[in-house]
């Protein structure tokens, strides 16, 4: 079945260093939609960015990701981490028309001074 894999449970970074959070997915469908949601402490998840176009970079609020269907990946990146980026990041997959968004296990990003 469809699945989303986020291999890192916790990523701790020093402020100013680049961020890369991994997301890979599995689906038999050829037109998946991929999403990144961010959940700050005691808040609800909110969309950070999304894509369904192969090999096209999507950017929002300093973060970017590119859907690579060849490697089934949608990694989240940022050039320079800020303290306020500390949060839980979910990658989500909508594999096919009419199905729901399936969330990965999430990666907690901790940015330290």
């Amino acid at each position: 079945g469809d699945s989303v894999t986020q291999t890192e449970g916790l990523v701790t970074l020093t402020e100013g260093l680049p961020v890369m959070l991994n997301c890979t997915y599995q689906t038999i469908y050829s037109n998946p939609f991929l999403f990144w949601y961010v959940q700050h402490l005691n808040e609800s998840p909110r969309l950070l960015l999304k894509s369904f176009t192969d090999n096209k970079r999507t950017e929002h609020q300093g973060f970017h990701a590119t859907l690579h269907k060849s490697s089934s990946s949608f990694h989240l990146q940022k050039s320079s981490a800020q303290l306020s980026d500390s949060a839980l990041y979910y990658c989500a997959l909508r594999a096919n028309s009419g199905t729901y968004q399936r969330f990965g296990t999430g990666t907690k990003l901790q940015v330290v001074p």
Partner: protein
Amino acid sequence: GPKVLQIPSHQIIDMGQMVTLNCDPVSNHLYFYWYKQILGQQMEFLVNFYNGKVMEKSKLFKDQFSVERPDGSYFTLKIQPTALEDSAVYFCASSLEGSAETLYFGSGTRLTVL
């Protein structure tokens, strides 16, 4: 941005009792969802709802669960009877045109079953 409201924010009940979680979705949204998040774990899909009907449900959506949105009011999740393993945060979400669209989440209802 668009807001989804969930009431109450926290509910504590005894095992076996009934509970209803309420969600006020974004006003022009047509698709509604419930997700369950056990403390420290990922968010898991429970059910989605469109045009007055359940579209899909996961294996977590047990027979004791039901959803409805009577007359365009609150979108509700009812659990009857509750079990200890139902303790979790339940997030309601809505989207304008289905699951390819952005999900807007409420702040969650923390359900504690004693």
